[in-house]
């Protein structure tokens, strides 16, 4: 079973489509505690995701009692030190600037041989540049959605198609073209997301 570690943006994109993604082990979905906590916080603005707080209870977060926690903590310290020291992305020439949340996801992904599910290219570049032998990779949410459809975990319908339309409304990052084509083929629906 693949371990999939979701960041907040991708969790917001997929949770409504697969509400039991954290309950059913076949999905392989996990996240970190700080991300789950974000779902229970009261929004400062009129919420674009009104369903968010109701879903918080279903999110499974990795625990600090995990058997690999020492390794994870050590990974976190290494990543923190590298980012603070100003490690540069060799592809872009800019310094990596992963948020604390992103650093935590990478630290867990390294220890659990997991994939980070994110729209952020910088995570992928950082993982491959610094941990080429250990980092499994970053996957886009649409790729995961397609995988779940292919595995029969989800059945596409008009409601899910509406949720997909919200990706565009909410200005989510554009998804890979290859995956958009794959989606059209798998569902018979036209891809309407971002």
């Amino acid at each position: 079973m693949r371990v999939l570690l979701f960041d907040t943006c991708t969790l917001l994109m997929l949770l409504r489509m697969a509400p039991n993604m954290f309950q059913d082990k076949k999905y392989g979905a996990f996240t970190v505690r700080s991300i789950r906590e974000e779902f229970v916080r009261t929004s400062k603005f009129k919420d674009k995701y009104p369903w968010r707080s109701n879903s918080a209870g279903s999110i499974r977060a990795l625990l600090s009692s995990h058997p690999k926690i020492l390794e994870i903590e050590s990974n976190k310290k290494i990543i923190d030190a590298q980012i603070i020291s100003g490690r540069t992305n060799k592809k872009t020439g800019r310094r990596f600037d992963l948020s604390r949340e992103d650093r935590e996801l990478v630290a867990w992904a390294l220890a659990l041989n997991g994939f980070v599910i994110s729209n952020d290219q910088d995570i992928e570049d950082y993982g491959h540049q610094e941990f080429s032998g250990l980092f499994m990779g970053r996957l886009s949410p649409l790729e995961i959605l397609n995988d779940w459809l292919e595995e029969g975990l989800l059945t596409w319908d008009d409601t899910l198609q509406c949720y997909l339309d919200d990706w565009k409304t909410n200005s989510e990052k554009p998804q890979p073209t290859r995956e958009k084509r794959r989606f059209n083929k798998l569902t018979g629906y036209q891809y309407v997301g971002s």
Partner: protein
Amino acid sequence: MWQGGRLKEELSKQGLSMSKFASELGVSKTAVSDWIKGSMPRGQHLIGICQILQVAPDYLFNRDLPDISIPVHRKKLANKITDDSRDASLEVAYLYLNLFRNAKPPKLEYVLQNISDDAEEQLSVASQMRRLAGVENPNPINYAQVFELLDKLNIVTIFRSFPDSIRAYAFHTEINGHRVIFVDIKTNIIDLIFVLLHEAIHAVIYKAKKSQSTYYGDTEETFCDKVAGLIQFPPSYVQSLIDNLKGKQKVEKVLILKQFAKQNSHATYGISQLIKAKSNILDDIDRTVFAGADARIRKNTLTIENILFSSDDPAEYIRILRKLSPFFIQLLQGEIDKVSMSKISEWVDLGSIADAKQAVAELRR
């Protein structure tokens, strides 16, 4: 920063030759030699180094960076500043390192070359500051004028919710040559004005090198207190209060002070101290009376959080933030398309990426 020397020390301590260590780690001897000379290893090699040598990653890095000054705090009677507090402030400042590293160098800035204990000179500095803030009347400076002053002094103000370990309303640090003041959004306006002025004076005092101490020296602290007090309360305001208090009974005096304080958004305690320095008119009133009065004023005064989130409309939030901290908004606008949404969310500290996304959408308009 990576400390190659520590690696060398540890190899020597553990009796490991560079060749043996390199072979255990599966890298060339040249790579190890480069690391010792100062080049930072890749992440996966850092993991290997820590595992083989059984050292914590922290041991191989120095947390003090050349482009950031250690945040220092006011050393106050009951306000015990601990290493934890300093470290927590540094952690906050680290979140913004790359925001300032990627920013253009700051423009020419107002600098105070000397710290003087001469009352006339302190008043002259305070008067200059009031003029910079655009204060034209003899009233106490208000919070909007304070933020105007910070802007004129090229100080970037960043609003965050401070962790409990930071026992301060605000603190100043310098990041990549930029003057930065972090403000705890939970702070009440009546507490914030003096503190912001105090930190602003620290920010503009010329320093030959960045601070490596946890505390400011007493001379600098006293100077900042005096000047901040004079900026907030010009002598004519203090005198007008004294005139109003003359011949009044104890209860009346407290009521008058409270009335002035409410009208001008300040606490009674600070002004009472300034009055006491000039006159014995308040000598019959215990300081606890002012503390009680201030607690009641605080209940009816806004916090920075109340001001920033006075509406649930992200456009209004950005408009207020732009007014209070225009430099910060400029810096964010330069970076919004270059970093992840979770990083932006961390910078704007809205506690939620969904909120941060709405704020960013407004910044793009």
